[in-house]
């Protein structure tokens, strides 16, 4: 990274010339500090430019090209985007991804309830419960998918066996349209509860005890305290967890791939946006895959902005 090194004096000149309160003289001590900083930052910066910044630019170009069967790319303007917007499976992948994200968001209230229970003072076995809830989050999704495949199996799965005990004939969960998505969403909720629980528990520790004291004096019971003290004061953590949930939910891939597999008859109706990206990458259709990548970026960005806009209505910062 000779450019960064040689740009140091140039940067010094501009910073000396720059107006503002932080202006300082370019002394030998400062020069030494800047040189050391370059040594500290350049290794990371090199990798970040080579493996991230440059690829992001390249991907934008890829999305404007058509790839031949042997890898040659030709410029084709907005063809990929037109094809994508006319492709029913693209719209279906958005719907599926949003349903999955919605299911994960439904898991947040559940996590809030569990977090408020687990953080009761002096509760015995709290660490045991915490371990149990957190275990699914650390387990490899591709590996836990194996047992879920058996649990959800339409013929011999233990879930359908349990349903049959109450007189319900369960479907072939993982190979039936919509049911497959629900099954994947349930496993996703099972994984995400632990993460949410940890973040929310950390947030609960910062609620001042006086709030409970005051509300107790006013005669609030536990459920009233939950809705009038815990939830509003926890809202910054709930907000953070929901932003993270949308971002990770849009990344749905591992569970689909490992639970359903590539030959599943229902996969076309169940694929997520990332799965669509992967499927086109695998067939060498990189231009289309790159366009899907851009679409994911745009949608995640929109939803995150939307969440930050909406936070003013319900998040209380004390």
């Amino acid at each position, binding site marked *: 990274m000779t450019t960064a090194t040689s740009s140091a004096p140039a*940067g010094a000149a501009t910073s000396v010339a720059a107006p503002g309160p932080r202006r300082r003289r370019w002394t030998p001590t400062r020069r030494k500090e800047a040189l050391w900083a370059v040594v500290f930052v350049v290794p990371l910066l090199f990798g970040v430019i080579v493996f991230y910044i440059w690829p992001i630019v390249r991907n934008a170009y890829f999305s404007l090209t058509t790839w031949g069967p042997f890898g040659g790319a030709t410029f084709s303007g907005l063809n990929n985007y037109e094809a994508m917007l006319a492709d029913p499976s693209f719209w279906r992948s958005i719907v599926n991804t949003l349903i999955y994200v919605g299911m994960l968001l439904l898991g947040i209230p559940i996590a809030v309830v569990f977090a408020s229970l687990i953080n009761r003072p002096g509760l015995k076995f709290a660490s045991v419960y915490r371990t149990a809830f957190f275990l699914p989050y650390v387990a*490899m999704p591709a590996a836990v998918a194996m047992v879920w495949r058996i649990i959800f199996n339409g013929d011999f799965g*233990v879930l359908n066996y349990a349903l049959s005990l109450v007189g319900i004939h369960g479907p072939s969960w993982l190979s039936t349209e919509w049911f497959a998505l629900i099954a994947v969403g349930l496993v996703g909720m099972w994984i995400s509860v632990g993460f949410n629980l940890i973040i929310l528990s950390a947030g609960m520790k910062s609620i001042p005890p006086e709030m*409970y*004291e005051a509300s*107790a004096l006013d005669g609030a019971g*536990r459920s009233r305290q939950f809705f009038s003290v815990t939830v509003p004061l926890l809202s910054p953590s709930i907000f953070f967890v929901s932003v993270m949930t949308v971002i990770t939910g849009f990344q749905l891939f591992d569970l689909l*791939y490992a639970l359903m597999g590539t030959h599943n008859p229902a996969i076309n109706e169940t694929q997520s946006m990332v799965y669509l990206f992967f499927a086109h990458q695998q067939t060498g259709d990189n231009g289309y895959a790159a366009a899907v990548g851009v679409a994911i970026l745009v949608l995640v960005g929109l939803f*995150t902005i939307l969440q930050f806009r909406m936070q003013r209505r319900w998040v209380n910062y004390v």
Partner: protein
Amino acid sequence: MSSAVISDTVIRDAAARGRSPRVKRPSNGLTHTVLAIGSLLMIFPFVWQIIMSLSTNAQVTSVPPSFWPGELHPENFAHVFDQLPFVNQLWVSVAVTLIRTIGQIILCSMAGYAFARMEFPFKRLIFGLVLAILMVPPQVYLLPQYQIVQGLGWLNTIIGIASPGVFSAFGTFLMRQFFLGLPDELAEAARLDGASHFQTFWKIMLPLAKPGLSALAIITVLASWNDLLWPLIVATDSTQMPLSAGIATLTGSRSIPDYPLLLAASLMAMAPVLILFLVMQRRVIDGIAFSGMK
């Protein structure tokens, strides 16, 4: 935070003032019931996986389910080593995870320290560039990353799977936040004593940053061990894949001839991380909570 303790003090205060306590201390019976049911739902798949991995294929696929195999079949675990490239994939997983974790600890702590504590030209611009990557979903850079790795001849190699993950915007941000939270005085004292920037970083600040480093290490180990999409793209040879890709390729196959074998294999694939979590539970939970609070 401590509602039960508080209600106790409330009761005492009220009693001292000669009023009847309005708040009674409710029992935790219902709390335990709800949490126990929740915990069982969380644990059940793991228990089921262990039981089924010790059963025969006929028992796994029996209707109604056989809840206990009677005679255990630990040989299913031995068969994993004969019938699947498990040892190869384990080695790939371990090597990739080590390279990524050690690489991130070195690069992210150095860069994070510089962003937090040093002045240099274009600092804000460069930091903004690093932060921008945090906002971008991986699909936006995976295809060109693949081209780079392919161009270097690194497809189906450990270094190819590990290399992009060595550079982490998230880790840099995490370490910067951690260094910003450390007191300034020690570093200043060291500088006054004539220590160089590198000595200050290496001997004073880095040892203080151990909690931050352990959070970074834990998150990187988890992410790297469980990562699937990137390894599936760059490693197509089943002996050169990490366990995540190897297991997912098998579980995702159309029909599964031998369920206990795959159950045993996937159990062993996730075991190292699960054991790590159980042993270092406090640190893992604190690490995740810290990264969330950044």
